[in-house]
């Protein structure tokens, strides 16, 4: 510091030197680090995309509004006089006026919403919004929703309704619940502090008052509504009567027909199920399901329709067990039976037991300037690790990679793992 001070005492009186230091202090700031620069740029591009989408939506609304207002041109208004002015005012009131009643619920997902508006003298009408990706969109009583993607409606008490794509529903205007016009909703209800549950689903064919915590409702092609519970109990009412449906049961609602509780088709879960196909390295495949309390789960061989196995549910309807040994491949269906009642069979599920380790072969080991090239072949769906690093496997099962020479001084380990979890390892020693 002493040499700086000695020089500075004179230098700071030299304006040129001070200006040079100021300029240099700017030049030595090179901006953000690369990582932070990328983060800012990504945020900026995301904001640009968001603003562009918002502008496109605003322009679309303006075009629509101009289309509406275009009807009321000055010349037309002049020709219509007071009548035209009134029509314009009424249109504006319909579009922007009226009041909305908060429903203390929010929506997330891609959906089109029709806003319910309430006017004087009990007048009500809806104003449609185009489909949009909505996040925590505040819903109001009477709002109608068309789910484009899977949509989640969260109520202030934590209860949730998940609507599948294509579902059309409307929030009830006077109480917690909804009207289901089409599609399927899964409802998980949070009881109030008093333990009381107030949530109603209505359809064209009847209504369902929840008394449990979780239930599912869907409409079908013949316009009837099937309803069943995952947990608890649901009161089902049509114009011809009402019943309670419990775990493992379903009821079909139709106007003028008394509802009857039937056993539902079992939904069986496997740890490694992908699109109806289960691949396991163990011949005894574990599964779980919930059916009617105390009922029997029947496992059918789908090819012969013979009974493959049976399992008895506990008092809660829960079954967690393993299937009898499957040799190679089996196609199974599931149903349940209890006290003379039997459900329909489920869709077929293919079980593939694969105890064989995957085929693995090394076709080339070659030193190159960049390292050691390794090429080989394995099963189509296997994953391959070379010295612990995952390598892409082509659809024909071949793979190729380069191992840096320093990582392969003594040996290269190649491991292939098939979808059932069987592995084959080859250790390639280097000369």
């Amino acid at each position, binding site marked *: 510091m002493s040499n700086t001070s000695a020089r500075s005492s004179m230098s*700071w009186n030299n*304006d040129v030197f001070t200006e040079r230091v100021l300029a240099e*202090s700017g030049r*030595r*700031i090179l901006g*953000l680090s690369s990582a932070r620069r990328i983060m*800012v*740029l990504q*945020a900026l591009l995301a*904001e640009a995309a968001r603003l562009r989408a918002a502008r496109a939506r605003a322009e679309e609304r303006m075009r629509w509004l101009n289309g509406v207002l275009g009807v009321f041109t000055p010349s037309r208004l002049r020709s219509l006089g007071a009548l035209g002015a009134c029509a314009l005012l009424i249109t504006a009131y319909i579009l922007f006026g009226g009041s909305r009643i908060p429903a203390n619920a929010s929506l997330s997902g891609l959906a089109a919403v029709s806003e319910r508006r309430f006017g004087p003298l009990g007048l009500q009408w809806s104003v449609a919004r185009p489909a949009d990706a909505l996040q925590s969109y505040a819903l109001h009583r009477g709002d109608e929703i068309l789910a484009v993607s899977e949509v989640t409606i969260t109520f202030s008490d934590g209860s949730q309704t998940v609507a599948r794509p294509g579902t059309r529903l409307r929030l009830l205007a006077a109480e917690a619940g909804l009207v289901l016009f089409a599609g399927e909703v899964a409802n998980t209800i949070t009881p109030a502090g008093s333990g009381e549950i107030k949530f109603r689903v209505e359809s064209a064919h009847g209504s369902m008052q929840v008394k449990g915590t979780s239930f599912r409702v869907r409409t079908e092609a013949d316009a009837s509504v099937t309803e069943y519970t995952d947990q608890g109990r649901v009161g089902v009412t049509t114009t011809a009567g009402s019943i309670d449906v419990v775990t493992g049961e379903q009821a079909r609602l139709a106007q003028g027909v008394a509802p009857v509780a039937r056993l539902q088709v079992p939904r069986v879960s496997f740890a490694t199920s992908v699109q109806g196909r289960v691949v396991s390295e163990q011949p005894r495949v574990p599964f779980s399901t919930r059916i009617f309390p105390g009922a029997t789960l029947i496992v059918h061989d789908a090819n012969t329709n013979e009974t493959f196995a049976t399992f008895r549910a506990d008092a809660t309807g829960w079954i967690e067990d393993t299937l009898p040994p499957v040799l190679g491949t089996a196609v199974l269906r599931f149903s349940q039976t209890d006290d003379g009642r039997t459900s329909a069979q489920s869709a077929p599920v293919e079980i593939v037991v694969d105890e064989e380790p995957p085929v693995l072969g090394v076709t080339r080991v070659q030193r190159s300037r960049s390292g050691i090239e390794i090429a080989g072949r394995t099963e189509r769906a296997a994953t391959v690790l070379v010295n612990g690093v995952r390598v892409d496997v082509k659809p024909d099962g071949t793979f190729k990679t380069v191992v840096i020479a320093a990582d392969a001084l003594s040996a290269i380990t190649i491991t292939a793992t098939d979808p059932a979890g069987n592995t084959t390892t080859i250790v390639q020693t280097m000369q």
Partner: protein
Amino acid sequence: MQDDNLSKSAQREVDLTLLKAVARFDQGAVARLFTEYEVIVSRYVCHTVPDIGEEDLQDVVQETFIGVLRSSGDYRGESSLSTWILRIAHYKAIDALRRRKVVEKREETIEGMSSDEVSFVGDASADVEEELVNEQDIGLVRKALASLPEDQRQALTLRYVMGMRVDDVAEGMKVSRRKAELLITRGRASLKERLAELDIRQ
């Protein structure tokens, strides 16, 4: 002078074209704008908020460019694009200062600051006139600059750190050319006094 005016006018045309594309939220134009102006915005923010950390700098730079994005439709080419962007950066930097209450605490903070804190993004290997300008000189000048009144600091930063002409400084600060000259002159005098004080202390 005529050539100077011509090149200035040509540059404004380029700036206007770029900002028109940004105002359409064209991703390529947004990326180009950011790439071209990120460093000068960072430099300016670092001199306006002297003890700023890298994370805060990132926030201010991001806020600045988002501000540019949102008001890109308002740019009319009346000032150079860099001046216009730095004006937005100035407001964002002042907001950051206010948020962290650095304005009130600045006098105490100056004493405790090390030159490292304000030069974290600096290139330690820079050897430009190393014999004449070293890190200690830069640290001292930054401390002195940080202690000046806001308008003088802004004028000196724009004029000498950012290398702007007096006309552009005036445009950037939205003051007359005479006022800008006055701020620069006063700023230099204040800086000289402050440097002398700091030098004696060290």
